């Protein structure tokens, strides 16, 4: 069976790189004793993949991975068994069954919602940014791009800025680019969204 697992991370775990995060989950799954499926070959690894890599330094309340299991697992068992063995700073929010013919999570990745937490009130500057039709800034590779093309939604209040940004394989923007326009902040991903037949849905809707 294919399962979709929603997880959150905070504290020290926010500084774990994507590769290390994959390893932490692989080890957690092994510790849990759940009947995970392995790939073939000389170096078998657990069949799992993440919807969207999370940058080093970001906390999350809604990130996803899918895992293949050897057999059906009753509702609630994955959450219970995995929660019992994962490190304190990584928590399992929910898990669900993913249809066998459902696309890979990575393939339907569409957008992500972030909260940027600034030390000071940035609402005026943020509102001005939202009001503009175009805003040229340097992306992380040093190219000048119109970042407004990636901002799907946004609002600001005091030191908190909420942003929904494109996050698909063709079109994605790291919130750090916008953070760098406004100042230093802590970044938390709130939710990841999939595009299913033109509809934008939080990933957990894919799970049953």
């Amino acid at each position, binding site marked *: 069976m294919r399962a979709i697992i929603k997880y959150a991370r905070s504290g020290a*775990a926010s500084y*774990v790189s994507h590769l290390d995060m994959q*390893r932490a989950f692989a*080890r957690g*799954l*092994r*510790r849990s004793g759940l009947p995970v499926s392995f790939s073939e070959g*000389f170096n078998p690894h657990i069949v799992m993949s993440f919807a969207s890599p999370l940058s080093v330094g970001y906390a999350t309340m809604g990130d996803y991975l899918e895992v293949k299991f050897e057999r059906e697992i009753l509702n609630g068992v994955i959450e219970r068994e995995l929660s019992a063995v994962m490190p304190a700073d990584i928590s399992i929010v929910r898990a669900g069954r993913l249809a066998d013919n459902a696309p890979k999570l990575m393939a339907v990745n569409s957008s992500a919602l972030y909260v940027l937490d600034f030390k000071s009130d940035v609402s005026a500057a943020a509102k001005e940014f939202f009001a503009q039709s175009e805003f040229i800034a340097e992306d992380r590779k040093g190219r000048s791009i119109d970042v407004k093309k990636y901002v799907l939604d946004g609002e600001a209040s005091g030191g908190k800025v909420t942003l929904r940004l494109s996050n698909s394989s063709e079109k994605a923007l790291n919130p750090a680019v916008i953070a760098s326009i406004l100042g230093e902040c802590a970044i938390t991903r709130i939710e990841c969204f999939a595009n299913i037949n033109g509809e934008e849905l939080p990933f957990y809707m894919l799970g049953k």
Partner: protein
Amino acid sequence: MSHMGSMILYELLNSKEDIYAQRCFAPWSDMGAELKKTGEPLCSVEEDKPLCEFDIVGMNLSYEMCYTTVLYMLELGNIPLHSKDRDGSFPLVIGGGSCVVNPEPMADFFDIFVIGEAEEALPELCTLYIAHKQKGYDKQAFLEAACKIKGIYVPAFYEVLYNEDGTVKSYTAINGAPERVEKRVIADFDGSFKIKRPVLPYINTVHDRCVLEIMRGCTRGCRFCQAGYIYRPLRETHAAKLISQAREIIKNTGYDEISLASLSSGDYTQLQELAGGLLNEFEGKRVSVSLPSMRADGFAPETAEKLQKVRRTGLTFAPEAGTQRLRDVINKNVTEEDITKTVRQALLSGARTIKLYFMIGLPTETYEDLDGIVSLVREVRELYYELPKEQRRGALSISVSAANFVPKPMTAFQWEPQDTMESLRQKHVYLKSRLKIKGVKFSYHDADLSFLEAVFARGDRRLCGVLLSAYKSGAVFDSWQDKFEMERYIKAFDENGVEPAFYANRNRESGELFPWDMLDYHIDKAFLLRERIRAAGEKTTKDCRGGCNGCGWEKGCNIAEAGK
């Protein structure tokens, strides 16, 4: 969390109700600079507690070139560097590890060194500390009581006098300290504490897998090898115990790899039982088992079959010297035939990366021995081309590494001068030009670093000042090439009026009193001298298992006792 000793002690101490052990690592220089700038102290990982607020701070001394980094950690932890400047309000600073065979260059900075295996000595020391703390802690009174525990060396309790020629004249034990500090050895190694829940870091550390210590000690008697002498006597853990330990570690960590640790895993007498047991239990769980290179014959058919299924990607082999003559001098008892046999087998099972480790600057070495390295490398390369053509898939890559020989205390070569830096550099150039062979990569160690290793390995207390001067002028992380600057040390030797060649390049008299002679590692000087003479005569000494060689272990060594 790559260091097995720290892992054992961490878990062991935390299994005791009245002890809480936390970890602290040297922060990289950028973080170190930030701490210095803000005045924030270096803290533990577990509770973010400043080092200076602990009762005891223990340092692992595994490598001479880490000494300045130890000073860096103490300073960042707001702990005065010198033992004499720390009263009872500061933590007790203790050290252990393979460098405490001769801890004298660090003697001024430490209150206590634990000599030998710490699994029993360290809890005893902590228990004594607790008792003293309960009745009102006084550092001097505590040290006077602590030095009565076997294996506890309090350097301040030994007064050292020097001869005019700079050698040690005498040392005098004071404050009731024993004449000589005996190395601690766990009597029941098989039944001793074993790791069950190793700390699992997020980042990929070196040796990031389940490691089973199958054996302590080694009976081969290689004359250059300090580990071979100081970890005696040879003791094994039972295969059944190791398999259940592996089961527990895999359950607790989710590791997907198991490897074996010892000085010479091929010599473990229960290897068949262990390999078979591990493969049977873990193959189905997709946990890979890395075994030492060994012949498949002698194994149960099903185990042999499983062993053969494992594709070998590489072989690492340490002939150490290029000619049989020199291998006899150092008592590395492998023949050219052993080498070619092992390599041919590895090539047949698919290995395409061969790593060959050599040492240069060994006692009695000539350029003929260097030529021997070159011809051995060529021969290994030929073996590949002798394979039937259909088996010659993939390009062969041979890495040849030459380490500069560093004479170490408590070995048969503790009297020998190290080859000079100039001579070592000439040998590097010589080998480099002759090893320009297709598919062969040659690397060698920096002569500067090896020279300093030799100075500190056999140094005395007058080097404490040198280390302090070097540290003050910026030396830290000296084993990182981009951080190391020889000039800092040259200046430090100068400032302290110390001639480093005295320690590195001097031929010592057989009767000389050594700086580390107050430490008793149970290896007779007379035995080491005999070994030195045999080396000069190019005579080998057999493996202890072929009969006791009389190294000084009488009680506690199964081999010596069986021979009586």
